[in-house]
């Protein structure tokens, strides 16, 4: 598989500063606020009960994954096939799979919901232009 090349544009999820990094970067620190940033995708295939998941990449909750969090922020998209109980901010597509169970609010640029998913009462704002993430690269579908 060809390795990705060229710079990748990121936005710091702490201070919202934008900057470029190399295509193969896994983690970096923001040049403005110096805080650590995760660039890699977060793949969840077990139970994860955490306070926050923040990444400049994607968050993928696989079929057997279950995530309970206060906040999930993923600048390239959130893809749910399992169970998600969290408030979600996404700079890309939020895809809720056919067997997914979603509980929580959602702010994203776009959403795709497949037939058969279960959603319990969350507040959705799609597209949310106030996020300021609209011109970042979109996550590819998984």
């Amino acid at each position, binding site marked *: 598989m060809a390795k990705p090349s060229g710079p990748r544009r990121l936005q710091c*999820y*702490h*201070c*919202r500063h934008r900057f470029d990094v190399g295509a193969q970067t896994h983690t970096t620190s923001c040049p403005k*606020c110096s*805080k650590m940033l995760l660039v890699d995708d977060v793949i969840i295939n077990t139970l994860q009960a955490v*306070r*926050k998941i*923040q990444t400049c990449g994607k968050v993928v909750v696989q079929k057997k994954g279950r995530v309970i969090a*206060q*906040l999930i*922020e993923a600048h390239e998209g959130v893809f749910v096939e399992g169970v998600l109980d969290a*408030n*979600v*901010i996404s700079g890309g*597509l939020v895809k809720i799979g056919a067997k997914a169970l979603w509980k*929580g*609010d*959602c*702010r994203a640029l*776009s*959403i*795709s*919901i*497949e*037939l*058969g*998913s*279960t*959603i*319990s*009462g*969350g*507040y*959705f*704002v*799609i*597209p949310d232009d*106030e*996020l300021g993430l609209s011109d970042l690269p979109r996550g590819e579908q998984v």
Partner: protein
Amino acid sequence: MADPTTQTTTVIGADTHIKGDMSFDSTARILGSFEGTISAKGELQIANGATCKATVEAGKVVVDGEVDGNLTARERVELTAKAKMKGDLVSARLVVAEGASFVGHCTVGPDAAKGGAPTRTDHSQGISEPKPGGLVQPKQPDPTFRK
């Protein structure tokens, strides 16, 4: 395929504006604009370019235009890529195409439509952009906790 002689479709034309209550048993297609309440056993289609400022209760709803109001479907709601929906949505099943716009509460599941209107939650302290550098404060220690 359904027999066209047995199925009736009510069409509200593109140059038609209706205010009031509407109820039907089979299928209705809105091409113009509608304001009020809609109660239906069958299917409601809101075409591309149509606007519907209404509280809708129907069996199946397909949105290709604009809806401003609460929407309850016993069977299924479909938002196409060009759909714009503003209001609370309750349905047994939901399909949203990428590109659709949706602002409101969403309750979807086999039991959702049986319960009627969605239970409102207080979103005054709901989702918000995280403050720069703002980690969530840890909870206060439980005073009953003994070391």
